[in-house]
């Protein structure tokens, strides 16, 4: 009996600990709120794949992490709430944006390959370059007048476009003009790029970019700093064009975003020391945009967007809430069923299964497990098995009672006979959980985790909780009545 009381105390202590854990872990308003997967909360999910490029044919862990670092910075710049970026497998990244946030902006920012190159202008093209740059300035100015920001200047001063926005009717017929100028500008930029040598220095050697206000005047400079290799290449590159009047082109995704000249004082050795600044009298916005583009440009490998998945809150969450409510009603029916069929033992089973649910929730909070729909499916399956274990035991107890055995003896035999089938069933399930968790991806993993936890806990629940509770109850003689377990009609006449 002392052993029973020991177990009983342990179960009670665990239940209190689990309850305390759940209440301290979550604010009462959003129980488990942070631990719900996107399919339950609503939101959007982007899956990105890192593409091998150039000398790199397979993407390794370090490269994936390097890409993640850059993307992390880009996302922080977007200012979205509670987003998470995780690496998945060897070459994939998953970005989750909960709530009603527009994934399109994130997709555009993240999906831009942003391959950054530093290229020197070809000799003998100075005249043509001057013409093109003049054209570019004209086109940009024209665009601003037409009320459409140019591509290299996505965020112009708001007051520049205000007059046109106030007169949308007038802006309408200008659409064709705008498209025309945009196309011209793109062609000019492409022509400029054609005037450069092939790239000798790419964004992967750029460590960081920044901006600073000019010491004299109100303009801004953009600063660059390279790693050792990049610094050497940059020195060579700048030395080759210093003082010639030829320009250094900064090319992003095949588009010239900036052209810089290198002063004659660098003719001897180029710009050494691995850092440089572009002095272009930039406005604060221009400098910030260029900085962001340069930083983004240091993405070591291009990424491709595989998937953008949106679950609008009214489509997903509401729907699922009603479903969960329905499932809970079903579980209540199961409890009623157990009590009707197994009487006192059924009551014990309902208590044990409630403890089982509590332990599961505590385990999810501790590990921690993010609840998704497949996860709930895994939990329901494990719950089904936990109920099954109780059914198996109680049916055995009934069988023993029908054969005329005493109550205490029937309970003991029932547990020991049901033991092997319960263990076999749970072990086979556990084996598939391990395989699914180790080899599966995405939802399969979520399913395997909750099923595995559930199976382990259901062994404890059925074999320890139910048994201990029953034994403790049986220590009260008033409860030791066979008709609390089996209708007396099914009990055989005592054979002497």
């Amino acid at each position, binding site marked *: 009996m002392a052993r029973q009381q020991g177990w009983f105390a342990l179960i009670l202590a665990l239940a209190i600990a689990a309850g305390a854990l759940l209440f301290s872990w979550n604010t009462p308003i959003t129980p488990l709120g942070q631990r719900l997967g996107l399919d339950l909360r609503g939101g959007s999910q982007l899956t990105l794949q890192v593409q091998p490029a150039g000398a790199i044919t397979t993407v390794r862990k370090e490269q994936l992490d390097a890409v993640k670092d850059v993307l992390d910075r880009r996302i922080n710049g977007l200012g979205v709430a509670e987003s998470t970026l995780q690496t998945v497998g060897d070459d994939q990244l998953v970005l989750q944006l909960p709530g009603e946030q527009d994934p399109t902006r994130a997709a555009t920012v993240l999906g831009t390959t942003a391959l950054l190159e530093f290229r020197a202008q070809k000799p003998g093209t100075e005249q043509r370059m001057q013409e093109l740059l003049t054209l570019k300035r004209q086109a940009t100015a024209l665009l601003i007048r037409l009320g459409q920001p140019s591509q290299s200047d996505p965020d112009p001063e708001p007051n520049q476009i205000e007059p046109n926005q106030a007169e949308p009717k007038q802006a309408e017929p200008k659409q064709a003009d705008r498209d025309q100028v945009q196309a011209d500008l793109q062609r000019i930029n492409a022509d400029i790029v054609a005037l450069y040598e092939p790239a000798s220095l790419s964004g992967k050697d750029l460590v960081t970019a920044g901006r600073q206000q000019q010491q004299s005047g109100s303009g801004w400079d953009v600063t660059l700093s390279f790693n050792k290799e990049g610094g050497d290449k940059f020195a060579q590159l700048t030395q080759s064009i210093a003082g010639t009047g030829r320009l250094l082109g900064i090319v992003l995704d095949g588009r010239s975003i900036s052209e810089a000249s290198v002063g004659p004082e660098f003719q001897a050795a180029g710009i050494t020391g691995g850092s440089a600044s572009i002095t272009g009298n930039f406005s604060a916005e221009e400098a910030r945009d260029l900085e962001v583009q340069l930083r983004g440009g240091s993405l070591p490998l291009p990424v491709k*967007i595989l998937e953008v998945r949106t679950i609008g809150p009214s489509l997903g969450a509401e729907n699922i809430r009603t479903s969960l409510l329905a499932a809970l*009603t079903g579980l209540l029916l199961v409890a009623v069923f157990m009590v009707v069929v197994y009487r006192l033992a059924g009551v014990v089973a309902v208590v044990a299964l409630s403890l089982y649910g509590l332990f599961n929730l505590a385990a999810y909070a501790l590990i921690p497990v993010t609840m998704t729909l497949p996860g709930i499916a895994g939990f329901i399956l494990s719950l089904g098995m936990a109920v099954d274990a109780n059914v198996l035991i109680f049916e055995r107890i009934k069988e023993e009672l029908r054969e005329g055995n005493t109550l205490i003896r029937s309970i003991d035999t029932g547990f020991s006979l049901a033991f092997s089938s319960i263990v076999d*069933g749970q072990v086979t399930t556990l084996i598939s959980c391990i395989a699914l968790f180790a080899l599966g991806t995405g939802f399969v993993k979520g399913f395997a985790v909750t099923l595995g936890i559930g199976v382990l806990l259901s062994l404890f629940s059925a074999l320890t909780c139910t048994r201990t509770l029953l034994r403790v109850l049986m220590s009260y003689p008033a409860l030791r009545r066979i008709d609390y377990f089996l209708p007396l009609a099914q009990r055989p006449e005592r054979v002497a």
Partner: protein
Amino acid sequence: MFAFRVNRHRRRLLLLSLGALVLSILGMALSWSSPSIRAPLRPGLDFTGGTQIQLERRCESACPPLTVSSLQRSLAALKLPADGANPAPALAGASVQLLDGGRSLVARTPSLSPDQAQVVLQALQDQVGDTVPGGLSIDTIGPTLGSQLLQASLVSLLVSFVGISLYISFRYDRIYAALALLCLAHDVLITCGLFAWLGLLAGVEVNSLFAVALLTIAGYSVNDTVVIFDRIREKRNQLKDLPLADQADEAVISTLTRSVYTSLTTLLPLIALIFFGGSTLYWFAIALSFGILVGAWSSIGVAPTLLPVLSRR
């Protein structure tokens, strides 16, 4: 419980299962040969890849009528911007569906970049009128992701089958292991068969939730079968003089109550889900309940009747 001796009706029981299997395989074959499906089951967006745009219309009492063909025509005429080096996909084959009496609208196109999806969305909104902001969803799934998902799931399933059969061979013997896997295949195949027919006749698509349902059914099936096996082993020790067929029958009879109760308690929440749950989980709940019924059937009607047949050899 009543004494139904399954091995006396072996032929009829097995024929029933065989018939269901043949019907299932026929359904999958028909589905495969159907020009609009070309797969054993009608694959949803999760497996085909592509972009799906869903809109909910905001209208007072009745929505102004829309026709699918006019929407499709306007999509086909749409010019999309190119996505970097990749040319824009053609939208001539895009499909448009009206749901809930025209209240919501689903358009399916080849995979679109975020910018392209915005263009399509704009074009749809121009025609549809006011929409509910929260009801909008744009899903884009690359074709590689679907096959990757399928491949990883299949590999992990196969490995778990090997693990399960090794464990059962160790605890029982090889025939039991083979039978457990046979029952598992039986349950999964017949569930797939039902959805093949549903796909053919009612246009029901399978998504990744269906794959989760299959995993659940597989786990349930093995658990169910193992309980019967455990009882057969016990009866073999108790009733040494009887032939195996009678031992198996005794085992089924003494576990029948448990099998019925267990299936019932698992089905209760699922049935509540079918009738009162939301549409997201509707087909998921149907797949699960059907699979659990088939699983209960195979552990009562297939495993104990095939065991004496296989053991004789």
